[in-house]
């Protein structure tokens, strides 16, 4: 009963707050005309939304300053840090570079510049992993289970900032090498999925008829089975074929995920292609007597580039997550190769230490966070590109 009263009280307060904000906004003559018009034409519900936003920020401030918990403080600090980095990155982009790139950065929202920054950082980490990482990914040290933090007083070791895992491998090095393995394999897989998907999709769009029917029905059949379960099933078979050859397992995994994901790419490229093949310039090219490959690669592909690129970003995230999930389940990327999915699984027991040593408990979250951060970054960039190419508002 008491809770109910609280809820009613808060809702009433928010509604009153919304009304107050709008009335104040209308009464006070703001310096900009835009702001005045904004308050003048503001619907009541929007002003309540504004009140809810202010309320939420109030709660954040309360938990950050007055009743801090370590994970929450890290999250807020991280958010602020990333926002500042993105802002500086965008600012640099606006000042340095060619006229074209400067213009691009000027029109860029902060989220997109954040995404681009993340992608660049990940790419550098993946490419130069061997130089950046303090140790090799397969190096085993005598000291196992060293706690993170680097302070000997709390069971750490300055030589292993993030500590070592139960076998004695340096965790920082493995996270860095994980970028190379997980991201690299995901990239190859996505490229392969696109090669298969777009070729078949455009072919179906141009030719139509039985080719379209055949490929579409095959794709339907593949899509009818839940993707992860299907991948698991096929991977079980592939693991049996490959035996103990870890490299071969990885190759099979790439092929399986590429084929399964190409079904989604096929759907998109067929739909985009169908809109393009009805254009008069395709008819003109057909009447000129052009070959099929010219039609696909010279006439259709350049026009389908924008939606496909956006899809590439999204698809990359999904592939990436599928690989991490498979690795987490133990049939993806095989040890001793470092991989974020596997690391989450290997280190997951540490989460039990949350009450005593928050930093230790954060270890599995770091690998998971590395995955999440890239996914978020890529999605930001994709959103921005979609907006740019389609003229979509909001």
């Amino acid at each position, binding site marked *: 009963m008491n809770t109910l009263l609280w809820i009613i009280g808060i809702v009433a307060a928010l509604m009153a707050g919304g009304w107050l904000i709008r009335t104040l906004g209308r009464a006070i003559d703001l310096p900009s005309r835009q702001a005045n018009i904004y308050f003048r034409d503001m619907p009541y519900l929007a002003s309540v939304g504004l009140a809810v936003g202010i309320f939420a920020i109030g709660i954040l401030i309360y938990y950050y300053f007055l009743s801090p918990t370590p994970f929450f403080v890290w999250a807020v600090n991280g958010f602020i840090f990333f926002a500042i980095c993105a802002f500086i990155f965008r600012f640099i982009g606006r000042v340095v570079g060619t006229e074209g790139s400067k213009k691009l950065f000027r029109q860029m929202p902060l989220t997109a510049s954040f995404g681009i920054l993340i992608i660049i950082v990940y790419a550098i980490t993946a490419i130069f992993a061997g130089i950046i990482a303090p140790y090799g990914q397969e190096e085993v040290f005598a000291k196992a289970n060293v706690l993170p933090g680097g302070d000997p007083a709390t069971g750490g070791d300055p030589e292993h900032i993030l500590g070592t895992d139960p076998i004695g491998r340096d965790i920082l090095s493995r996270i860095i090498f994980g970028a190379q393995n997980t991201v690299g394999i995901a990239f190859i897989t996505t490229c392969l999925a696109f090669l298969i998907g777009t070729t078949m999709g455009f072919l179906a769009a141009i030719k139509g008829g039985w080719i379209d029917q055949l490929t579409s029905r095959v794709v339907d059949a593949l899509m009818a089975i839940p993707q992860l379960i299907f991948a698991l099933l096929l991977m079980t078979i592939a693991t049996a074929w490959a035996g103990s050859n870890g490299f071969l397992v990885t190759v099979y995994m790439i092929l399986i995920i590429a084929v399964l994901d190409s079904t989604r790419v096929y759907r998109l490229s067929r739909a985009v292609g169908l809109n393009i093949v009805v*254009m*008069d310039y395709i*008819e*003109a090219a057909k*009447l*000129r*007597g052009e070959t099929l490959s010219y039609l696909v690669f010279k006439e259709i592909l*350049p026009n389908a*580039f924008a939606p496909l690129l956006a899809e590439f970003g999204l698809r990359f995230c999904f592939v990436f997550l599928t690989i991490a999930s498979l690795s987490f389940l133990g049939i993806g990327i095989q040890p001793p190769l470092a991989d974020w999915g596997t690391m989450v699984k290997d280190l997951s027991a540490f989460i039990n230490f949350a009450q005593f040593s928050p930093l230790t408990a954060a270890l599995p979250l770091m690998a998971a966070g590395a995955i999440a951060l890239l996914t978020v970054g890529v999605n930001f960039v994709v959103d921005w590109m979609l907006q740019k190419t389609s003229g979509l*508002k909001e």
Partner: protein
Amino acid sequence: MSKQELLLKIRDLKIEGRSDETWNQIVNGVDIDLHKGEVLGLIGESGAGKSTIGLAAMGFTRDGCRISDGSVEFDGIDLVNADAATKRSLLGKRIAYVAQSAAASFNPAHRLMEQHIEGPVQHNVFSASESEKDGIELYRKLRLPDPENIGFRYPHQVSGGQLQRAMTAMAMACRPDLIIFDEPTTALDVTTQIEVLASIRDIVEQFNTAAIYITHDLAVVAQMADKIKVLLKGDEVEEADTRTMLSHPKEDYTKSLWAVRSFQREQKPLADKGETPVVSIKNVDAAYGGGTVKVLHDVSFDIHAGRTVAVVGESGSGKSTTARCITGLLPPLTGTVEFDGVTLPADYRQRDKDQLRQAQMIYQMADTALNPRKTIGEIIGRPVEFYLGLTGTAKRKRVEELLDILELEPNQYIDRLPSELSGGQKQRIGIGRALAAEPKFIICDEVTSALDQLVAEGILRTLAKLQDEFNLAYMFITHDLATVRSIADEVVVMKEGRVVEAGPKDVMFKPPHHAYTDLLLSSVPEMDPDWLDNLLEERGVDNIGDAASSKI
């Protein structure tokens, strides 16, 4: 009429549009006075700011535009500074808008009547049932067929002209004081257009509604407007009442607009009987959907070297289908297409490279006919490389030559994308691509109908020049008889997939005509403000447009 009270007062209206990170002025200070019951015609080329001004009269600007200066006063209410609630209470109720494409403006998921009554119910003008009754009355006044039941159809179940009238009825639903018509008949056939014009004019007169009529067609505006304002690139050129404007235009620009329709190429004599035609269509029957929907019935005509054959008819008459049969995109059921006396394979895939090269096509919409991701050099260069085998500098030289012929400065245009060109320039590139194949025969499918009159005339002149230079044969598909008058040597009239009448132009434009040809000819608006009145008197309100066409 002008003694009535002032309804809309626009003073020194300036509108800016945002592009490339800066605000550019697109309307530079326009004044409008509109009294109750008065119709103002706004005319000008595309980009003159007609539609922008029309929307600003409602206190509205498109995304990325803003009213930077000036005032818009509607019945004493300042629309520029009015708040959203005030505007909401005016729009739809006292100011209504009729858009160019009714098909795109109706919600396809709702019946016409449901959309019709939305406004009146929202604004508490009528109850739903009253509004429905009123809607039926309006449909009757607009002479829609079966007014009791047409409102219960979905937008795709009525024709374009009917939809445009239903939209006018919808704008009338709240009995507004002002209606803005934004090119309401531009997308329609001549025969349909005339019906819409007659009914719009009727209803505007009956309810004493003021209107702003936006169009680029002078002859149309002459029928509709009490006074005309001519715009050029956001500036007002001149304003006068319709009769004065037509008889005594003051400014040179206005005179040039009036003069456009004067281009006329000398008609060439018919080819000798014995001469082999470049293209000969013989008894062609064609159908879509694997023979189920028959669209062409026994179509035959010849096209001789150096001659232009205009194929006219309303949409759905089979003009474009005939072109598809010639190009081989739609193999005919029976009958043949001969080229220089040799029968062509029915399907374009079976034709050899040289046969494909000889017949080229220019499309109506240059926007969809040119690949937006290729530069002009690539677009024109491809047929040069593909058919003539030229590459490298030889190819570039040939492309530059072609651009020169088309009166486009090669160095300036060769590396541009189609989106960086104007409509007329794009159409020239389309011509260039056809010409690059060095063909004997070109099909021009409504090449000027998407263009302004001045630009269209330029294209026609270019086509005529090219024909004389290279002895080209043209098949000119159009529904615009003014174009036919200016460029054709022979005319073929089509209706419902049949050739109704064919012959040399001078004969075709002189009576006696076939009834359908007569309908087409009489439906072309003329620059005389009394033209529509006279026509209605002559033919009667029920003997124009679709109604008349279905009687034949």
